[in-house]
């Protein structure tokens, strides 16, 4: 796993973005950017600068699941690893996220250990 990879953190709450950025930094990933919803995130992702997307689900404007669908439909982004970090806890929603092609799903409230484990698992799969 490349610790210098560029990560985009998408959440409508700035405090949650800060928390995730801090946790990512503790895990050794300091190369992070932020966006407050899918509409802001998508053009950023389309620049092709990002190696990993961490997104919330429930956001005004474009939601996380819609962002995921856009990413998977975009030829240049369809293999981008996506981790969803969200309070959405319905089984149907998790199934929908899996079908939309999410690489990992973390429910809020979450711990630093869970975030670490999921990120490691995603990149273990990609690297293997």
């Amino acid at each position, binding site marked *: 796993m490349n610790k210098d990879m560029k990560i985009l953190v998408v959440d409508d709450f700035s405090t949650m973005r800060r928390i995730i950025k801090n946790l990512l930094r503790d895990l050794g990933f300091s190369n992070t950017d932020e966006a407050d919803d899918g509409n802001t995130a998508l053009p950023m992702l389309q620049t092709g600068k990002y190696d990993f997307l961490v997104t919330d*689900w429930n956001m005004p404007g474009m939601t996380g699941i819609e962002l995921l669908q856009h990413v998977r439909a975009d030829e240049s982004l369809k293999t981008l690893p996506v981790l969803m970090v969200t309070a959405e806890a*319905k089984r149907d929603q998790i199934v929908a996220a899996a079908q939309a092609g999410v690489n990992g799903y973390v429910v809020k409230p979450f711990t630093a250990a869970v975030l670490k484990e999921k990120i490691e698992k995603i990149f273990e799969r990609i690297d293997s």
Partner: protein
Amino acid sequence: MTEVKQMSDSSMEFEETLKAQATQLKEMLDSGNMSGALSIISDLNNTRDKTLYIEVGRLTRSLHESIRNFHIDSANSPDTDLNSIEDASDRLAYVVDMTNKAANKTLDLVEATMPYASGISNEAQQLKEDWTRLQKKQMKPEEFRILTATMGTFLAKLSDDSDKVYANLSEILLTQDFQDLTGQVINRVMGLVKDVELSLVELVRMAGKVDELTGTVHQLEKQETGIEGEGPQLHAEKREDLVAGQDDVDDLLSSLGF
């Protein structure tokens, strides 16, 4: 007061009038008095309309009353922070703002404190290595002099930095006072919601009565795609359609081949 009492009894009165008039109507029809029968049907309509107007009027008044009381409460509030807050939506915006500020301040303080902790840890690590060499008598006199100086600087810095860490932790502690203020605001808003809910239940009950009288049947369809964001769920442990935590998510995903 009598008026209010009268009005809340109005639907019961309506039923009684309805029964009485129905009996009269039957008598009229049996005796072949068509014009009398039509006049009773018209009376029935009037009675129904009047009951509805009275009930709707009463509900509107009580809704208005609970909203007005809410404003009066906020104006009389002894808490100066609450004086300027005019309605529930403003109050909730205040809660969002307060919690946002508190979370940001806490994050600022945590981010400011972390470098002290990692600095102390790094320097202590370095000193521990030197200290071990000293204990094993592997240290030259020149190195020992440097170690003594470094140790002096470290202890002074440790004392200063611990004070800063302590001060920041105290400030984080104080920053949690938002819970008290936002708690009070949320309790007030919950009071309003409860009042409005009571009035709405009454309105729904009345609407049900209207449907019953007019024989209307509604087709209520709940649309759920499973794709809408809903935010945090309550009572997850009691619900089958929700996951109770990360372990459940992991189990569900692994059952899908993740």
